[in-house]
């Protein structure tokens, strides 16, 4: 079922168009992630949906109703900000209560929802504290609590984890994922981190310079990127892109191959190269290889441990069935 729909939505700041006309459909209950490099317009797009920015042209529909000019607070959407945006002079309980106060929900109902949210988010012992006295992860949970109690029809997350350290980020990522499984509410999530996008999303929207490059499930984007931009943006380490004579062999202007679709050998293989730095992760080893006739240094994944000295000659072979071929315009060539 359709929930949020953008029809030809365009955004100009002064005379610069930051988002050229764009169409997008978000289904009810879906977890959609907007991902792209910084400055790609993903946050602006989220703020357009939230109503914090005015749409220059086009229509934004929520539940089939034109909501282009609806006030942000009347859209039934809750937002979690990157800086958490907790009200500094209010306690945790008062912060969580604030949207309910605005909605004039009866006191006892407010109290019930605060208690539930606090229990679900491990905040029960902190209800009387002020935001200043909380850790980053706790502040994040208060911000989520404040969003939950409104019982919104959709959650909007604007890079919610980027202020947390790496370990907390993984934990909060799981919590947000759990939350989505439990509430089954539509979630729109903005991040520049493609790992967050891959792990959280039902549907990823890859943005570049305000335009949608590709929309699809994480694995669709991973397996069949529709152009070079998506191919390079999704996946870590980055896909190797080969141009020139080695690509011409495969009848393409450029060929992409992921590090795990290359096999490395010290005896024989398709391409000959010289080993560079190796990164030993224990379960895998990533080896940088300079291949003759390929400008960019390639990254190759070897399963387990693979010992190779710097400067040693190695041979690498791509899995032909897992090659991505692109034409001169950078678009995927369907084989």
């Amino acid at each position, binding site marked *: 079922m359709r929930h949020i729909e953008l029809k030809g939505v365009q955004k100009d700041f002064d005379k610069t168009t930051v988002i050229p006309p764009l169409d997008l459909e978000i289904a009810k209950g879906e977890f959609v992630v907007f991902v792209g490099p910084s400055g790609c317009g993903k946050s602006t797009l989220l703020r357009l949906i*939230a109503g*914090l920015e005015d749409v220059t042209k086009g229509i934004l529909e929520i539940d089939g109703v034109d909501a282009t000019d609806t*006030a*942000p*607070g*009347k859209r039934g*959407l*809750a*937002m979690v*900000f*990157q*800086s*958490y*945006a*907790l*009200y*500094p*002079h209010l306690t945790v309980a008062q912060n969580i209560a*604030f*949207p309910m106060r*605005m*909605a004039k929900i009866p006191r006892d109902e407010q109290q019930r929802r605060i208690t539930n949210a606090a229990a679900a988010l491990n905040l029960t012992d902190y209800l009387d504290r002020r*935001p*200043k006295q909380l850790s980053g992860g706790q*502040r994040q949970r208060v911000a989520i609590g*404040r969003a939950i109690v*409104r019982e919104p029809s959709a959650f909007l997350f604007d890079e919610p984890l980027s202020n947390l350290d790496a370990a907390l980020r993984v934990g909060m990522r799981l919590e947000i994922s759990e939350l989505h499984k439990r509430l089954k509410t539509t979630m729109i999530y903005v991040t520049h981190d493609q790992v967050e996008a891959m792990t959280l999303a039902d549907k990823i929207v890859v943005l570049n310079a305000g335009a949608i490059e590709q929309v699809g499930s994480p694995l669709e984007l991973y397996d069949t990127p529709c152009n070079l931009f998506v191919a390079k943006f999704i996946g870590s380490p980055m896909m190797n892109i080969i141009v020139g004579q080695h690509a011409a062999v495969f009848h393409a202007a450029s060929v992409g191959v992921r590090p795990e679709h290359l096999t490395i050998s010290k005896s024989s293989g398709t391409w000959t190269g010289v080993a560079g730095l190796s990164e030993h992760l224990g379960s895998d080893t990533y080896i940088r290889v300079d291949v003759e006739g390929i400008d960019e240094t390639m990254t190759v994944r070897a399963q387990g441990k693979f010992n190779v000295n710097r400067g040693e000659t190695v041979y690498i072979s791509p899995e032909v069935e897992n090659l991505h071929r692109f034409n001169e315009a950078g678009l995927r060539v369907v084989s």
Partner: protein
Amino acid sequence: MIDNSRQFHNRRRFGLAMMITLLVFAALPTVWVLVLSFRAPVAIFEPIWESPTALTLQNFYKITRSDFPAALLNSFITAGLSTTFAMLVGVPAGFALAKARLSGKFIASWVLLLLRMAPPVGFVIPLFLLYANSGLIDTYLGLVFAYMTLTLPLVTWSMWNSFAQVPDELIEAAIMDDASLAKAFFLIALPAARPGAVAAAILAFLVAWNDFFYALIITRSGTTTAPVAVMNFISYDSVDWASIAVASIALTLPILPLMALANRYIVQSLSGAVKG
């Protein structure tokens, strides 16, 4: 840095010496005025060691029978009202300048700065002519308006600054929570900028309280403020130093707690206490 302890001690000693010098300069006149206020007018210029115990309260009694208490009340009323009005207009104005997407902010900032920097003489003559024609000379209203040429730019400018330190996302969060702009202002932005608002109010009050020039030109006997009333103790044949000393103390006492408060809040508002 502190491993050379001798250098450290020297530096400390130097700092201490500077502070004592400063204190002597700043405090000595105040102490002197305080002593003067307790001395009999006839003995006021005698060296204090000749009659160190000859202290009296008669100056205080005398001043209560003069026009000075009424002038003190006038000072309270005009400084209080001009601060109140400046806050009522300047705080929302500062909020708008800090948070609204307005064109011409640059011009507004220059106009405000100019108003802050322009000497009062620049305002007083046109104001006097205006007031003479509209019957505002020697009225509270006239003086309060005149003070607002000082307090309103001060409050607006400093609240612009204070609200600029309140993150946009706080207000946006309130708007997303379905708060009206007024509620976002009163329930979120204003409490977050409270230290700045208190500091602005205190500074505005002090500016009006300490004014001499406007009151001298605009008031007559009816609304004379305390700083002007002090002059009444200077007559053709004599200067009533004892009363002037008492009046000075009466003018200073009410602002001491304000200064202490202002000090705290100014530090708070400068240290960005609003960040969540």
